[in-house]
Each structure stands twice: as C-alpha cells, then as structure tokens.
C-alpha cells in the first residue's frame, strides 16, 4: 500500500521537475514522522506542484475525488492520472539503475572511439574560395634565388669574421631591405625573466618589466622590413618570420634568411599585393619565442612616446650610428613601424639535418599555447602548394616510438580486416585504411594530442596565436650538397611566395575552415565533431554513477533508519538529503588545497640555485603539510570525528568526487580539449573504480580482491609525477627518465601559461587525493 502510493507521488511530480522525481521524493521524511495533515486546508494546496506532496496528501486527494465532494477540472484530472513519466526520464532512470553496465560500455566505447579516430579522419580540403592556392604561377625566378644565395653568403662570411657584437647582421639586413625598396626599423628586446607570477598567469607575459642590469650589447635586435602594398589599403599585413641568432648564426639560419630575403625582394617589385608584407628577422639570442612575443606586444600595445624613448637607448647608437648613407637613412626609422592587422604569419626555419625525408622535406608545426591551432586552411594551402607545386615531402610531427608498436599494428590490421569484410558484404561501405597508414595516423594523432594537451607552443608561431593571428612554422629539411642551395632557395622561395599570394587573396580573416581539429597526417584531419565523441563517451558514466550512488545511499539511508531506530539523535542530520553537503564541503576543501598547491612553486622559485629534485620534493612535502593543515583547519577529514559513519558515507563521498571530476573535465574540455581527453583517460577509471579497500578485504572474493588491486594500480598511475614519468618512459625509454624531469616539465608549463598546469593541480590532484581518501576509509 505504502509502496504504491509512493509511486503515485512520483508520477504526479515528475512532470514538474526532473530532479524532484529522481531525488527529492525519496528524501521526504516518512509520512509517519509528519504531523497529521490538516484536512481543513484548501483543496488547491494539493495540486500546487510547488508544494511538497506526501503520500498522505495524495491519499487525501484521492479520497476526496472519489467521494465527489469537489470536482477537479479536466486539466487537473489529466495531470493526476497521467500514467507514466516522460520517456526521457524513464530512460534516465533506467540508465542510472544500470550504471555499472553503462559505465563499462561507455568507457570501452570511448577508448575504442579514440583508437578509431585515424580511420574516421577526413581528407583536408581548401574551404575558403578566395584562397585559390596555386592558381597563379610563381614569379620567383632563379635570379631572385641567386640573390638570396649571395645574401646568405654575406651573412655566413660576416659570422665567420670574429668580433661579432650582434649588430652587424641586423645592419646588413636593413641595408638590403632598403635597397630592395622596403622600409626598415629596428626593434630591441630585453631578455624577460621567466619567473612564475601566479597573479599574472592568465594575463600573458609581463609587460614592461625591464631588467636593469643588462648592458646595451645584451639587447637583441629585431630587424623589421615592410613592403607596402602599392594599391592596397594598408589595413592588413602578412608576416614572414625568420628567427636567427645574431651572435652565432648557423648555416640553416642563414638559409632561412636567404629564403626570406629572396621572397621579400620579389614582393617589393610585384604589383598584386593587397596586404603589406612584414619581414621580421627576429634575434633569437634570448629565445625565439621571446623575441617574437616582445615585438608583437610592442606592435599591438606600445604607444609612440615609449618607442622613441626606447629606441634612443641602445639601438640608435649601435645600429643607426654606423655608416648609413643619406639615402639609406631615409628608409630607416627610429619610430616603431606598423602595417595593418596581421592576416597570417609564416615562420620559416631550416632544419640542421634532414631526418627521414627522401627528398627535400617540410615539417609543419602548428600547435600554439593551450592547444590552440591555426585555421586548417593555412595548413591546407601550405600542404597543397608544397606537395603539388614544389614537390616537397610534407610531414607533421609524430611520435616515432609508436610506429614500431606491435599492438597498434595488430589493431590496424584488425580494422583493415573489418573494413574488407564490410566491403564484401556491401560494396558501398567504405571504411578501414591500410594497417601501416593506421599506425602512422595513430602516431601523428598521438603527437597532435600530446602537443595540444601540453599547451606549450611548438615554435615561435605560438606568439602570434596569442594575438589571434593564424600562423605556422615551416621547417624545411634540405637534402643536398651546398652546391644545390640556389635550387633549394628557389623551391622554398616559390612555396613561400605561393602561400603569401594565396593569403593575399583573402578578403576576411581565416574563418571558413576548422580551428578545432587533430591532424592524423598533413592531408588528413579529425574535426571537433568527431573527436568529441570519444571524450563524451568517456565522461558520460560520471554523472550516471554519481546519481546512482546518491540514490543508493538515500535508499540505504532509509533502510538504516527503519532498521536502527535506536539512534534517534543522529538519524536526522545523517540521513537527510542534505547530507551530501558535508561531503561536498570535504571535496571543496580538497580542491581549495589544490589551489594552494598551484601557487607553492611561486614561493619555491624565490630560492635561487636549488636543484629540480630538491624543488620537487619540497613541493610535494609542502603540499602534504598544506593538506594536513587545510583539513585540520576545516575539521572535515579529521580522523577522530564520527569515524564509524565514514565507511557508510563512502558512496556519498564518491558521488561528490565523481561529480567534481565531471565538472572539472567538462570545464577543461572547453579550454583545451586534448588535456581533458588525456586527463579523462586517467581520471575516469580511477574515480569510477574507487571503493574502500576495507570493503574489498572483507569480501574476500576473487572479484573484490581484483578490484582492490586495480584500485591500487590506478591510484598509483594517477599520481601526476608517476603518470608523467610512465608516459615519458613508454614513449621514449625508461633509462633516460629521471624524477626531476617532472619538475622541469611543470616549470615549462608554468612558464608558458599552460592551462594544463592548472588542470593538474586543481582538478586532477584533488580528485586523486579524494580517491585515496575513499580507498583508505576505515570502518
């Protein structure tokens, strides 16, 4: 009787709110504990869904209706006799009741979907009509290429003569730019300290922090050459960037300068420019990225007054003071020269030695900070022109060690076999790629995922992406003897010219193609719509399991009350629906502790000259102390209090932990999908498996012991340093892995403002601690 009426109450309430039907109804105190229902209350109370309805009330309503003392309207009757809740709610309830099965299926499917991504990858295509790559024949002649060659020889000879203060090369580049008709200005950069400033974490690098103790010679000098589009509106620009070390220039850096010079001198003569061309020869003696970032910051931020003051300090004396003829002096400006907003930036680099390429190779680096990618169209045009125009071999980065893994290869063969079987069944079904392609795709995908997850830019192009400029690094690997340099300059110069002409055709910002994608080869990609499936499947069990645990807890809580009425004092606060708030407080405090862990390295960095290992151990030790104090202060994790109840509360604690992990992962997937994906692979099994070890021990069945062992293993693997070192070891080799690598790694994450660092400290680590807490709960 009682059971039946409970069901009735659920039915009536269900259409007013999903949550009330799932959670609130069982939370209502049993009818017996309430004062008797005042029968003289108005009838309307019963049908007001904002009011809590108990079985008693509903019973009253039924009696009244049957006796016919009041006639409800048709709508009210309809609402009352509605037989079942809406299908979506029933499906939800069903999934919650089957949460174990669902979570196993979802996790397996999520991992499978991730492994299937290379198969699901699509061929790239040029989405923007305006680009028209390759429609114009290249204009760069061999004369231009040999000019570039002469230029690079000059740089090389200059480098071999000693007494290099770092101003000769900028000076010479400037002279050549003016001779070819461009405008020049010099931009000086100071080395920026790479200290970790927690408050400025999301604000980007500091602006205007100048170290006082640097002499003039330690300033880097960026040389900026600008060609104005003859009939353009001067509102947009395309950037060619060649980083080089002005103190010690290598042959490959000189080659990249030669390429840039031959293209630049050509572009100063052509009549089809609609966007200005900026050639930035960035002085990389304090780091490539720092030089570019400093120039970009000044390009977008610095006011005119600041510039002139700055310029007077060093550059004017060092570079401009040299013998410049009066003609040349007109082209050189003390002020900061600007062109329009940047449409795209190409970083041209030449690798020192070609590795693994059969012909002249090109490697494309695209990942910028926090997994941001340039528009796919930019990669597409480079790839199209390099392959079809200049016959270069194009690569994107891949993890080489994965190429030899047998399990990946057998997986590839399996999917190839499946594809063949499917094709034999129905010729229209076309999926499955050759196993070797699959392995290549996986290796590239893994590298793409890893680089995006790291959140550290893979080259100086990352600095542009911080200003929403699409940019990529092109690293050419020449395969030639030095006699064929002119030919190399010709090919590479034509490629760069083609890309610039294509971008020049652009009418708007890059917007047509994808921004969220993973590459599986230079001409294949996985778009956001596909790769999100893997992640969604992986995290889908989290809310289900949380809901299942919570409802189980409530049910058992009810049972406890009925079974043990001997603790009337404790029953009310412990077994109400609001009990989860206590555990939520615990979880919140652990997450707060995560925030403290995040900023500890800032204080550690105040002690100079300490080794990474010391720093790491200090960090861990202080985190532990921090955990102890935080918990002691809040009193939530204190072992003394109410320890008897803890073992019963583990389901609640797990439910809230799982919910917190779910929220954290969802938030992270918005910021950086790749981090969230890799994080989910570690975090989801750990959170879902967590069961107190005591329970497993008490069970003494094979299954329980296995579960316990799994839990210990997962928790061990889930500790950020071990996870990092294991990943390192698996991808590289375990001999070269050292423990202090982890400190260096996190340091680089901090230095690059990677959100992955925040994720590790504020989502992953607290969830890991909570999982340990669940495992170690006592009876």
């Amino acid at each position: 009787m009682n059971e039946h009426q409970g069901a009735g109450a659920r039915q009536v309430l269900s259409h007013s709110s999903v949550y009330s039907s799932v959670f609130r109804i069982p939370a209502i105190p049993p009818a017996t504990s309430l004062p008797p229902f005042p029968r003289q209350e108005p009838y309307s109370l019963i049908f007001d869904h904002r009011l809590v309805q108990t079985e008693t009330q509903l019973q009253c309503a039924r009696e009244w209706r049957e006796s016919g003392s009041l006639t409800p309207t048709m709508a009210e009757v309809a609402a009352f006799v509605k037989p079942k809740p809406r299908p979506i709610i029933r499906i939800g309830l069903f999934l919650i009741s089957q949460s174990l099965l669902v979570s196993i299926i979802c996790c397996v499917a999520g991992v499978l979907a991730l492994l299937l991504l290379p198969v699901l990858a699509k061929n790239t295509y040029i989405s923007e009509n305006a680009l028209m790559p390759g429609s114009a024949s290249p204009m760069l002649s061999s004369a231009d290429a040999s000019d570039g060659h002469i230029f690079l020889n000059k740089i090389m000879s200059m480098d071999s003569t000693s007494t290099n203060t770092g101003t000769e090369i900028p000076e010479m580049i400037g002279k050549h730019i003016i001779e070819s008709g461009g405008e020049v200005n010099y931009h000086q950069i100071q080395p920026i300290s790479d200290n970790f400033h927690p408050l400025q974490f999301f604000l980007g690098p500091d602006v205007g922090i100048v170290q006082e103790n640097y002499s003039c010679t330690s300033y880097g000098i960026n040389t900026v050459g600008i060609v104005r589009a003859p009939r353009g509106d001067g509102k947009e620009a395309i950037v060619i960037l060649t980083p080089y070390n002005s103190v010690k220039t290598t042959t490959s850096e000189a080659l990249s300068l030669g390429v840039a010079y031959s293209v630049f001198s050509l572009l100063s003569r052509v009549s089809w420019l609609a966007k200005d061309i900026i050639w930035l020869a960035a002085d990389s003696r304090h780091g490539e990225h720092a030089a570019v970032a400093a120039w970009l910051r000044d390009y977008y931020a610095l006011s005119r007054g600041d510039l002139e003051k700055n310029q007077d300090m060093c550059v004017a004396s060092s570079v401009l003071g040299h013998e410049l003829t009066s003609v040349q002096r007109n082209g050189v400006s003390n002020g900061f020269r600007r062109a329009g907003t940047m449409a795209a930036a190409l970083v041209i680099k030449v690798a020192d030695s070609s590795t693994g390429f059969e012909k002249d190779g090109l490697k494309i680096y695209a990942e910028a900070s926090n997994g941001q990618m340039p528009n796919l169209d930019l990669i597409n045009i480079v790839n199209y022109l390099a392959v079809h125009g200049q016959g270069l071999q194009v690569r994107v980065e891949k993890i080489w060690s994965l190429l030899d893994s047998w399990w990946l290869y057998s997986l590839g063969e399996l999917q190839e076999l499946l594809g063949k079987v499917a094709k034999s069944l129905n010729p229209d079904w076309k999926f499955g790629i050759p196993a070797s392609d699959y392995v290549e795709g996986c290796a590239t995908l893994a590298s793409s995922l890893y680089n995006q997850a790291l959140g550290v830019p893979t080259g100086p192009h990352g600095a542009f992406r911080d200003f929403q400029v699409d940019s990529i690094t092109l690293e050419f690997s020449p395969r030639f003897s030095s006699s064929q340099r002119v030919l190399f300059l010709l090919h590479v110069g034509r490629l760069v010219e083609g890309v610039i002409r294509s971008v020049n055709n652009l009418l708007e910002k890059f917007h047509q193609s994808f921004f969220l994608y993973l590459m599986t080869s230079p001409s294949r990609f996985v778009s956001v719509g596909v790769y999100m499936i893997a992640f969604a499947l992986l995290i889908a069990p989290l809310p289900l399991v949380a809901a299942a645990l919570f409802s189980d807890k409530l049910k058992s809580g009810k049972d406890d009350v009925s079974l043990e009425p001997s603790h009337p004092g404790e029953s009310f606060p412990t077994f109400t629906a609001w009990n989860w708030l206590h555990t939520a407080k615990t979880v919140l405090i652990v997450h707060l502790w995560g925030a403290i862990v995040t900023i500890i390295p800032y204080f550690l960095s105040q002690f100079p000259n300490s080794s990474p290992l010391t720093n790491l151990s200090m960090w861990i030790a202080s985190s532990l102390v921090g955990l102890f104090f935080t918990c002691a202060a809040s009193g939530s994790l204190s072992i003394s209090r109410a320890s008897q109840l803890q073992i019963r509360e583990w389901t609640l604690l797990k439910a809230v932990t799982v919910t917190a992990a779910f929220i954290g992962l969802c938030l992270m997937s918005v910021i950086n999908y790749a981090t969230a994906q890799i994080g989910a692979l570690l975090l989801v099994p750990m959170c879902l498996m967590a069961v107190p070890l005591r329970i497993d021990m008490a069970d003494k069945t094979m299954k329980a012991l296995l579960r316990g062992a799994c839990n210990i293993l997962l928790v061990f693997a889930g500790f950020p340093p071990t996870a990092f070192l294991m990943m390192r070891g698996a991808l590289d080799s375990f001999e070269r892995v050292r423990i202090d690598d982890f400190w260096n790694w996190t340091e680089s994450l901090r230095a690059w403002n990677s959100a992955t660092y925040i994720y590790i400290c504020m989502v992953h680590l607290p969830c890991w601690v909570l999982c340990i807490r669940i495992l170690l709960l006592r009876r």
Partner: protein
Amino acid sequence: MATSFKFKPLTISILLLFLYNAIASSASGSSSTTMHTNNWAILVCTSRFWFNYRHMANTLSLYRTVKRLGIPDERIILMLADDMACNARNKYPAQVFNNENHLLNLYGDNVEVDYRGYEVTVENFLRILTGRHERAVPRSKRLLSDEGSHILLYMTGHGGDEFLKFQDSEELQSHDLADAVKQMKEKRRFKELLIMVDTCQAATLFSQLQSPGVLAIGSSKKGENSYSHHLDSDVGVSVVDRFTFYTLAFFESLNMYDNASLSSLFTSYNPNTLMSTAYYRTDLYQRRLEEVPVTNFFGSVMETIHTDSPYRAFSNRYYRKSKTEMPSDQSGGGNRRALKDLDILEELADPKLNVRPLQSTYLLVHEG
C-alpha cells in the same frame, strides 16, 4: 510580325488592326503587332570578390560584343557588382581580360558602367526591369524600352536551384524574375525578351516565367554546375566561364550584317566542351528560332522601310516589306564608332588564339 502576317490577306490584317486600335488596353495584342524598333541590353554581373573575376570578365565581354553588334551605350545597362580592374590584387591595374593571351583589354576607354559595386542589388535590378525608379535616378540608369523593344538580359554569378545570388548577401528568385517580366509585359516594356544566364543550375531560374515573347537560355540544367573555362596563371584567377566563352566564340566570327539565327547559336553549345547542358526554353516564344537572326537581340539591326511619303513611315498598317536591310540611324554615334573599331577588334579578340582549356578539375571553378 512580318512573317506571321505574310500569307494572310491584307484586308483581314487591316480589320484586325482597327479592332486593336479600338481596344487599346489589350497589351499582348498591341505588342505582337508592333514593329521591332529598338534594342536594349541589360548585362548583370552579380558577384563580388576577387576570385569572381571571371563574372566581371563575362559581363564585360558580352558588353563589348553587343556594342560591337550595334547596341549603343545609352541602350545598355551594365551592372558590375565589383571592380576587378582596380582591385589591389590585379596584376594589370585598370585592365580586365577574358583570355590568358591578354590580347584584348575589356576595360578599355569607353566602358560605361551604370550600376557598380553595392548598387547592384536585387531591388535595383527589379526596378530597372519594371521601370519603377525614384525620381532622382537619371535616364542613363533606366531601361527606357517600349513595346517595340527587343531586350537582351544577360546575368552571370553564383546561383542554385531557382535563385541567383547577388552580392553575397541576397538572392534573386525565379519567382521574382518571372513577376518582374510579367510586369514588364503588362507595361509594354518589351516586344521580345531574351534572358541568358550563366550560372549553376541556370535552367531553374526560368521555371516560373509565363509571359509571352520571352526566350530563355541558361548554361546548365537543374542539378548541373557551370564551370569556368580556363585559368589565367598570370593574373591568378579563372578569367571566363565556359558558357560565355563559347557564346563569345560564336559571336566573334559574326558581324552585324550576318544572318546567323538564334537556333544556330543555341545548337552551337556542345555539352562536352561546356561540361554542362545548355538549356533553352522556347514555349513562350512565338517565332521560329531558325528565322530569328541573333542580331535581333545581340545587336541593333533594324529593317529600314522605304516609303514614298516620309510622314507615313511609322504607321505600320501601310507597312510593306523592304528588300534592303540597313543599320538604322537611330543608334547614333556610338554605333558608328563601334563599326569603325570592328575590324581591329575582331583580329585581336579571336578567343581561339592560344587557349588551352585546363583539364585539371581542381582549377575549374563552378558557379553553384
């Protein structure tokens, strides 16, 4: 008019004409009996942006052709949605070519663009057709045709099923076009109208037409794309579309005294070279295409009537078929200048010179 009444007794026709004069409001009757007295051309390029260079080149090529065949500038409404000649990306400033041999600059000294840039809108286009302008619009921007006019309406751009895109922001639908043509008919703004469209699925644009005297030809059937002809790798864009290219090739061998018929033009399109099927709709058109010279639309060649009395010249009830055909004088100075240039231009503009249609499908840009 001459052919339809050729074998009928004169008396009947006179009686009928009296009747028609009595019922002045009957539009169709009056236009079918009115003589063809003048020619107009509306040439529309509907698309913007540098990569649509070819649409402007198409339109300018047609402009040059109809001018060469005798339609004066004042009777050509030229609408160009963008200015490729002065685009910063144009390697040849102030020049537009429709062939990679660069022998003919279409953007010469005497190109009168009536509607340019953002003036080329669906609204303006429909206003031109229907003649409902604001008072301030100058005569040179109006279609001042009458019931004796033959009008050529040429449109090119990106289109689809029953629409043609204007300016990347709006569309002309087949219903709009049909409605405007119907209004024109009722307002007696044309005698015959030839609509020529070079766009993807061009045939669908004609599906709603129902006014008599309208002839329509499109570059492709429903579901087909129209393709560009070839790419000029020097300018870096495709410079002409296939349908227009072969139309121009047909006209380049003609001068205004040739009697090539519309059917010879319509059958000259080869689906293999066009890579689409040219579709023409004749069910609204009364005359047989074999008997209609192309210069009836693409030129301005009037029959001159020799009469004894100058004061009775334009009364068509006393019309006698003249034996000599001469260009009419009403086309004025522009016409003569075009004639003078004719021979030189013909030499320059043979599109068969040095053309190699590129086979790579990548380079073929379609209009869909």
